[in-house]
């Protein structure tokens, strides 16, 4: 009897502990996710309160073949390609540098890691100030800022990527630092004794052993990059985003859901972005994961 009662009370305790997370996930993740699949089948009513009109799949296909969607897709791909590989590389380089047993490394580690915990608003203000045509660094460096970088259709996406990169390097650095610290010290020492130079040991031992972390950072980076819109909204805004080619798919979802409400189209882009992200992630697993070594 005691055992049954004890088990029951343990179950109740477990449910109580899980409940806050479950409620939050249900309200902000699970319910919206499934709601999307009903929203994307209806045209939004012209006035709030009127009944939605059935659209079937036509709205979805119209949306994903529209010029704005293709522009958004292009901006998303360019942003991701600019941010993720460079972020992975620089995060790794900084983590390896900070892994050296040198004096004062703790300070550098803290500095490198802070970008990961800075909000996009902070990053946008900092970089927005740097890029300001009057107060920023560029005029001081003698670079012509007319039109300003944020108004320049060629350079605006690079400016957005720079902010994303700055934030992603912090995360990448933290994950690589953790990965490096978990590597078996004896194996790295064995490589030294076996005659491997530091560079050879890095490429033939450290990198293969770190490959699960590299794969993880890359996959997480791609997913995060595909959902970025914070700096676009804060520094450029919905009016100019399209003109300067930074109107990423995630930003379009935000605009259709909040700025100019059209929940049906927002849901269509959401589902398209979800499918796209899933495909890219599956491709990562299919083609990159086979090179990953999980043996330690």
């Amino acid at each position, binding site marked *: 009897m005691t055992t049954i009662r004890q088990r029951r009370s343990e179950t109740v305790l477990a449910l109580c502990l899980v409940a806050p997370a479950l409620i939050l996930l249900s309200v902000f993740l699970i319910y919206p996710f499934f709601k999307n699949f009903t929203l994307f089948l209806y045209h939004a009513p012209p006035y709030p309160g009127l009944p939605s009109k059935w659209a079937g799949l036509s709205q979805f296909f119209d949306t994903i073949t529209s010029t704005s969607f293709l522009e958004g897709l292009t901006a998303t791909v360019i942003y991701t390609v600019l941010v993720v590989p460079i972020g992975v590389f620089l995060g790794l380089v900084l983590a390896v540098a900070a892994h050296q047993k040198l004096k004062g490394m703790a300070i550098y580690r803290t500095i490198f890691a802070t970008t990961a915990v800075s909000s996009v608003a902070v990053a946008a203000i900092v970089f927005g100030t740097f890029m300001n045509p009057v107060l920023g660094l560029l005029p001081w460096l003698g670079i012509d800022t007319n039109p300003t970088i944020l108004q320049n259709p060629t350079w605006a996406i690079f400016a957005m990527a720079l902010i994303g990169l700055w934030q992603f390097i912090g995360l990448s650095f933290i994950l690589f630092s953790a990965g490096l610290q978990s590597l*078996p010290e004896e194996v790295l*020492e*064995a*490589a030294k004794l*076996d*005659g491997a130079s530091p560079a050879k040991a890095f490429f033939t031992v450290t990198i293969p*052993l770190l490959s699960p972390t590299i794969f993880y950072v890359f996959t997480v980076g791609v997913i995060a990059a595909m959902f970025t819109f914070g700096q676009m909204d804060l520094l450029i805004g919905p009016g100019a985003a399209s003109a300067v080619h930074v109107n990423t798919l995630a930003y379009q979802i935000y605009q259709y859901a909040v700025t100019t409400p059209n929940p049906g189209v927002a849901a269509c882009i959401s589902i398209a972005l979800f499918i796209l992200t899933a495909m890219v992630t599956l491709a990562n697993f299919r083609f990159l994961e086979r090179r990953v070594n999980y*043996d330690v």
Partner: protein
Amino acid sequence: MATVAFNHVTKKFGETSVLNGLDLEVTDGEFLVLLGPSGCGKTTALRMVAGLESPTSGTVTIGGSVVNDVAPQHRDVAMVFQNYALYPHLSVAKNIEFPLRQRDVSADVRAKKVSEVADMLGLTELLDRKPRQLSGGQRQRVALARAIVREPVCFLMDEPLSNLDATLRARTRSEIVRLQHELGTTTIFVTHDQVEAMTMGDRIAVLNAGDLQQVGTPTELFANPANVFVAGFIGNPGMSLLASEVVNGQLSIGGTPTTFSGLGVSGAVTVGVRIDGVQLGSSGIAAICDGVEVLGAEVHVLGHLGDDQIIVRQAASAPRPKIGEQIFVELTAQPLCFDAVTGLRVGT
């Protein structure tokens, strides 16, 4: 092959001193065992030969050259680690050839050498496997193969048998000794297991708390320990060490006079007796039985006299004393005497 020497080597980690002026020479082709309890500095000493630690002061020489500032990859020493340290992402064959690859040895020579070494260690069938697909014993052999294949001047082995089960450990012990004799490579083997040390080493260097206690052949250390630490550490079981007194030339233990005299000492001493130098009797030195260990053909009776422990061997068929019962111990061989204060060997 080369001579390896520690010349007054000291190692400190912060304020903690791990090695205190170690002077030790390992001669060319010798199998030397560094023996001591955990934290005695034996692994640190080995890592200094490997170049994985630097001495705080003093010099380490390999083949007569000071190597304090030589990087590990340029020392031409091979190390077998406690956890084998195999490259988990490489096959057995690639693990073995790794050191050769680093030296840009041609593919033909690499293949030939890997094949020879794999054959020597019975690894031929396992060459395509990954380390995770191997048993502990097989991994151990791969680690040995990787060390052997490059023909280094010195082998360093850091408790390589400690992860193996008792049977495999005994077998691998003799295998390593055989290989070392065949190759004739200078070897430094670190262990805390005195049975390994006694059965494998040409000589044993006993360390305790960073100090070298004694260096000698297994027989020398067993028969003539330099101090109470070596006496208690060497042998299975180690010597029983008993507070005693020599009055008018006659040895008295626990207030009971013994028949031994002419020990060349007087006053308070610590005597060391091996298990085969004592027996239970109906009279003699009184002790209290603490327990009995049954080992099959014989039993060990554990007892104490004051604060000192004593172990006596008994036939398995003999009546066994009970815990807490008084027992009487007789000395059947002349004990060794140690200074009661310094613990150093004294007398004859």
